């Protein structure tokens, strides 16, 4: 039966693709895109840093995407392999074996765009729906089902989605229990109305509705009986307004009662509001945001947590840092229960020929973000189980979550030499964002980074980074040195040494030394690394994953075509 099914699918696919090709526009030939990536690690024991060796002693993660497009038709699939997955890739062991982890067919013309199979979609800012793929972080919450996008008129986009989300890969896709249905409508008024086309004010309005079906359950707690709802909806409205250099955007989302593992099975409604304003002048820019989130975790399965099947996306208010110590020791993530937060940022370029700008100009950026818990009072009696708490005000609650100040100055001194200085100040609550097991409370940290860049020849470049972190909490002080030499366009050699010289335990004052050699040829890149990696947090975009300490070799290959 299974074999029959496979043959049937194959022949349908074959027929479809050849059929479309036969009718295709000869001016639009078919095109094939894709990519490969694999990361293989070999492990050696190092009890000092806590590096352990899995029984197989080595591990590999790999994937290859293949996407074929001809005219309006496209189809694609991804092969994945984890034998076994690299250490720390998935705490819940969600990645195993080799097989197809994603497949779809799609057809689009000027009005309709239909997809069957796996797809990634985002409604508005993602407060109601965001499915995405971040292979380096082990995130793939792809929807598996159907999507229809209709553009009846320029400026109007209507979307409908229906499917289940990918939870796990075990030589094949394993989807989560819940069924996700949703729709989104967006209207760009300047494109819709001819009279507004030339106006300097641009306005886009949007609304979305997403609902999860998961069979209700009966729960017993303290001799009380609770029923969880079959259907949970999450809806939002939004706008984006641009006028000359000014941009303003906002979104408000509300979720009905959704008792879940994330909120200790409370029945309270979820609310999220976010407002952003920015001004972009010549040579400078200002950006400010406020965010309020209360109980907005929304997943395809109410009983799952952490990285498993998030349906919406709650980005962090802090800047995504790139310097090693700032990025990997104390990265902040929005607590799913809620936060009140704001952020302000200024970018400025001192122009060429001015006193501070010098011959080439000087770039400056200053950023500050703050988040606290909600201002609430715990409820008692039956309400302690239903609503849990009540909101006193929309102001900052008493619990500090994060303060993040950073300032960066970049300057090119002459044709060969450029330098940058960055300063960070963090107050970071490790009880709320559990990035360390060594300290629970607020970490106060100063970080300084000096970067020097020297071009020996137009193709040979040396990049040096000296970083220092001082704190009386957690693991104490750190120093990091990064040296990277590149010979354009093919070669690079890098060495990083992280030294925990301030650790209160003397034997933990370890040098984490890691070296890499990389070769790049067009879209292909191969990197060989060796050394010690410390336990830490690895982030891309707005999402972070905890990685264990490792010691050994690493080989990475990536290619696109």
């Amino acid at each position: 039966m299974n074999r029959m099914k496979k043959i049937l699918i194959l022949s349908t696919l074959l027929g479809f693709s050849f059929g479309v090709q036969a009718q295709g526009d000869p001016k639009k030939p078919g095109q094939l895109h894709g990519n490969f990536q694999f990361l293989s690690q070999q492990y050696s024991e190092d009890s000092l840093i806590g590096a352990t060796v899995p029984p197989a002693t080595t591990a590999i993660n790999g994937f290859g995407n293949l996407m074929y497009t001809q005219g309006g038709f496209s189809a694609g699939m991804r092969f994945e392999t984890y034998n076994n997955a690299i250490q720390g890739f998935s705490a819940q062991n969600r990645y195993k074996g080799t097989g197809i982890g994603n497949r779809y067919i799609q057809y689009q013309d000027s009005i309709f765009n239909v997809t069957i199979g796996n797809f990634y979609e985002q409604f508005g800012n993602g407060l109601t729906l965001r499915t995405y793929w971040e292979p380096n972080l082990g995130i793939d919450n792809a929807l598996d089902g159907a999507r229809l996008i209709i553009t009846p008129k320029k400026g109007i986009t209507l979307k409908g989605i229906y499917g289940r989300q990918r939870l796990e890969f075990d030589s094949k896709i394993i989807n989560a229990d819940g069924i996700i249905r949703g729709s989104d409508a967006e209207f760009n008024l300047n494109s819709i109305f001819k009279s507004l086309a030339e106006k300097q004010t641009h306005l886009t309005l949007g609304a979305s509705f997403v609902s999860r079906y998961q069979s209700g359950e009966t729960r017993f707690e303290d001799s009380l009986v609770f029923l969880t709802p079959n259907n949970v909806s999450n809806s939002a409205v939004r706008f984006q307004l641009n006028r000359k250099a000014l941009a303003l955007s906002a979104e408000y989302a509300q979720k009905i009662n959704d008792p879940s593992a994330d909120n200790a099975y409370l029945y309270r409604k979820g609310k999220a509001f976010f407002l952003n304003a920015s001004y972009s002048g010549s040579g400078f820019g200002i950006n400010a945001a406020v965010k309020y989130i209360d109980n907005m975790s929304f997943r395809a399965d109410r009983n799952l947590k952490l990285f498993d099947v998030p349906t919406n996306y709650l980005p962090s208010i802090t800047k995504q840092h790139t310097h090693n110590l700032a990025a990997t020791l104390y990265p902040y993530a929005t607590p799913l229960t809620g936060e009140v937060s704001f952020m302000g940022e200024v970018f400025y370029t001192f122009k060429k020929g001015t006193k501070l700008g010098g011959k080439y100009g000087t770039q400056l950026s200053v950023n500050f973000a703050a988040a606290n818990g909600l201002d609430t009072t715990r409820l008692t009696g039956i309400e302690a189980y239903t609503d849990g708490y009540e909101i006193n005000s929309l102001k900052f609650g008493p619990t500090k979550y994060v303060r993040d100040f950073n300032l960066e100055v970049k300057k090119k001194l002459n044709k060969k030499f450029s330098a940058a200085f960055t300063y960070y100040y963090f107050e970071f609550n490790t009880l709320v964002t559990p990035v360390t097991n060594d300290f629970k409370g607020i970490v106060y940290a100063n970080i300084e980074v000096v970067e020097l860049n020297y071009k020996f020849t137009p193709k040979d470049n040396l990049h040096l980074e000296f970083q220092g972190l001082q704190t009386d909490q957690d693991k104490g002080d750190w120093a990091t040195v990064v040296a990277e030499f590149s010979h354009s366009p093919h070669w690079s050699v890098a060495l990083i040494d992280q030294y925990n010289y301030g650790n209160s335990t003397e034997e933990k004052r370890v040098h984490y030394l890691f070296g890499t050699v990389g070769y790049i040829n067009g879209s292909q890149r191969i990197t060989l690394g060796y050394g010690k990696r410390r336990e830490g947090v690895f982030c891309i975009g707005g999402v972070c994953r905890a990685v264990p300490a490792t010691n050994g070799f690493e080989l990475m290959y990536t290619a696109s075509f």
Partner: protein
Amino acid sequence: MRLSISILFLFVSIGLSAQETLPSISLKDLNGKTVNTANLAQDGKPTLICFWATWCSPCKKELNNYLDLYEEWQAETGVKIIAVSIDDQRSVLRVAPYVSSVMWPYEILLDSNKQFAQALGVNNVPHTFLVDGTGKIIWQHNNYAEGDEAEVHEQLLKLKH
């Protein structure tokens, strides 16, 4: 498994005769207007498509370094640079103020959920594509190191001849 191999062969065999052009994805510009990526190539002149993010230092270095050469490149080859940001919702609103502060004259597009990046097989940023005047992708480079602009220039000049 046999099914997978068959489909792989199917794609590859069709692909061998295929020409690389830009896929059709709807992206937004900084004003919220929709732009179809299939129409990004300039008619008769080259287009450089650079994937970047505000949190990616080498990406910003690449586009800042191109800035010093852009006028010269444009006069010589008519090239247009399109900087496609893959910043997600956490940082996408930082794109406009950052771009204006460094005064990039490039066309900026937002690919917040990486649909265009994935359709072009982009694994990591920076990733740069050179599209010729007929809309064909003729060169690409993953990563950026100081001096890579010399290779971009070389590729641009090759197109001219």
